[in-house]
């Protein structure tokens, strides 16, 4: 499994961005459309940071990535091991009104994302039972 406190190449702060009233979906655009929430690429970051806070050393790092033609090599925080043979799709959970914080913790209090919730099978099944949705094996294991 991936570390709970992964060291990211950029000390991105969720706290700061969310305090500016940005929505999760501003950056994670895939979350309501498909399986993967998506992390935007460096061009998207620089869309704002061309002008905002350009002297911040972390932002200079982002600008340097872009100048080299490289994307930011983010380290994954949440993932399943391939042997778990499980698939997760964000979009139906968002459609059903599940809050992002249910699985990812309160992001307004996190700088770089940390694994605050242990997403094991017990966690998923518990919630599926509470919400009276399918707990058939092949809902997730297919």
């Amino acid at each position, binding site marked *: 499994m991936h570390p709970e406190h992964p060291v990211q190449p950029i000390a991105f702060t969720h706290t700061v961005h969310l305090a500016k009233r940005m929505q999760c979906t501003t950056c994670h655009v*895939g979350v309501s459309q*498909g*399986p*993967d929430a*998506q992390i935007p*690429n*460096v061009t998207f970051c620089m869309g704002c940071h061309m002008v905002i806070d350009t002297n911040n050393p972390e932002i200079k790092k982002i600008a340097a990535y872009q100048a080299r033609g*490289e*994307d*930011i090599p983010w380290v994954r925080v949440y993932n399943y091991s391939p042997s778990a043979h499980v698939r997760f799709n964000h979009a139906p959970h968002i459609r059903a009104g599940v809050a992002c914080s249910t699985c990812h913790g309160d992001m307004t209090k996190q700088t770089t994302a940390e694994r605050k919730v242990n997403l094991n099978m017990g966690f998923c099944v518990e919630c599926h039972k509470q919400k009276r949705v399918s707990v058939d094996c092949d809902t997730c294991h297919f």
Partner: protein
Amino acid sequence: MERRNFIKISALTGVAATLDACRAPDKQLIRFIPEENLIPGIAVWKPSICTLCSAGCGLQVRVMQGDAEVERHGERGLIKMGLAKRLEGSPQNPINAGKLCARGQAGLQVLYHPDRITKPIKRSGARGSGQFQAISWDDALKELTSHLTALQASRSANALAFLARPLRGQRRELIEKFLTAFGAPPAVWYEPFDEAVLRQANLLSFGHAALPTLDLARADYVISFGADFLGTWNSPVAQSIGYGAMRRGRPGRRGKFVQVESRMSQTGANADEWIACKPGTEGVLALGIAHVILSQKLAPQSIASPAASRAGSQIAGWSAGLPEFTPEAVEKQTGVSAAVMTRLAHEMTLSGAAAAIVGGAPLAQTNGLFSALAVNALESLVDANRDEGPILGFTPEPPLSNAGEPAAPAQASFARLNSFAQSVLSGKAGTPQMLMLYDANPIFSAPPATKIREAIARIPTIVSLGSFIDETSAQADLILPDNAPLESWLDSVPESGSFQSLIGLAPPAVSPLHETRPMPDVLLGVAQHLGGDLAKALPYATFDAMLKAALLPLRAQGGSVAAKTDDDFWQSVQTQGGWWSAPAAAGWKSAAAKPAAMPQGKQASHALTAPEFAGSATDFPFYFQPYLTPSFGDGSTAHLPWMQELPDALTTAMWSSWVEIHPKTGAMLGIQQGDLVEIASQAGSLRVPAVLSPGIAPDLLAMPVGQGHENFGRFASGHGANPLSILAPVVEPSTGSLAWAATRVKLARVGGPEQAKLVLFAGGMSGFPHDEKPR
């Protein structure tokens, strides 16, 4: 060291190594900024066209975001991009209606092949040494244009030669226009199995110089003379769909299918009745059947029909009822009994809709044209004069002036290659000084007697526009790699397989993985750079502009795309994967039923000539038949590992070559399954493992084409042997086509199974139930 310590230490080092490997593997490769924004995890199906044979099936490509390992600006790294994950047939396409063959599905491996040439390269060692160095596109294009301007400056533009696989559609148009405007001779279109004989025969018999389209779904009786129409011949996917409907699509009415051939093909294995006939006498057998029909007046209405009298007039003695072809006389020549012939004649004329087709080995004899005309005459006798139209017809040409090949068959491609090689070797003034290669590999696929290897070695400058190193492009001085088909604008004008006229068109399904450029764009760019007539003849910046200009006139024709504006039309054609005429068009049946006007000066009827073979029957006692396989075609898909590991349908052999030998012949020569044997002809010899197969005539040896590459990537090189390398340069005289089944060979055991490499997936054919135990 104690055992306990050893285990401890190895466990610890093992864990350390694993942990090390697990640590953020992404860090080893940089990530490039994605060039396109896609939603991960969502698949999109995009249209494309299959280019792995000439049938032109429509594709749909499943494209999803993925990580590709690529090189950008001289550095390796990962990039998120749309990647093709799966190929399926396009459901709307009139040819393949959602189906696709195994070779078509392997088109993915062309895109992701590890041996693809990923950037322009220039020869750095001796020619053919395989030493190349990477250069930039700017330098590569500069070098190409400097060679071309040098030719222009020395007033020897006619010393430019272009060698390519026969193409149809706008790629052909582009190359032709380029060569004409440059002042060079026409391209040498080369393909070893090019069907020139059948096109010529169809022109004489039916007035169409094309391969036929078969409406098998309506047939009640089909007799095929050597045509492997479910495997490799013509448009196999379209024919398989029709065949399925003929056999199982009409409850209570199952069409009968008879296959005449000397080596059982995949198609022959499907037949109700399999008839072995002496090589080169298939036409005689057809006329034997026709004799019974004519003499017993089994099809009284058809005999007088215009179609039958036209096709029949090609055969000497037809109007007199073919007196020389009595079943008894034909039995002596073909080895097929007179009773069988008579029965077939009765069955064919009594069943509802019957058809006779010809293809493959019968046409690759010195008397191939006669055999084809004979079968065509039988076809028009049994298949004419029906209200609903015949089973055999021809796909209408799309209503564009320059869509397909010219109506009259050009020279056979073997004749073209031969005269090209001879003109180079003659060394006279005006011989080719520069060769441009595209998707043709004659060094592998032409018999050595053409001396094409020597000819190509003599040409001072060779530029390849292909994606892979093969035997021929290995000789190149400069390679400007083409995009893979899935990365390219594609068009196709299928010659057959559809009852509607059809043009396939598709935009690139994925962005280019590597630093390659589409061949058409390279030529268009060079034309603009050279200016003058070339720039005037090809006034397009990119190939899609040329395609758009060519296809827009179709908007007025209605058909499958209804659009108010040109831009709408162009968009709809791309989404649909092409344009086709309305399915209700009566053109197919009426045009096919009505024989076209007889070409002038072609009235002479053809008399039987006996097939001639290279090598005497005493020195070389066996007929030799190379045959095409669904996996490899003429060998140009042998570099795809899925095709290498696909077991042959009848023998289950894979990853190798083999020769099929009748068990009786094997017993006579002491050859057992898997033994190493040597096959020798006048032109050369090769060694392959033996496969004992009851589905072959005892005096015939058959070998699959496609293996035996010396230099075609990691998956094809060094596997098996190439049967084309022992063919004598025998030709069918009226077309100059290679008679690839007219070489005789001898056979000897040279080693046991331990010296041969025969990989069988399963047991293969054990024997026919009605045969005496063969082994």
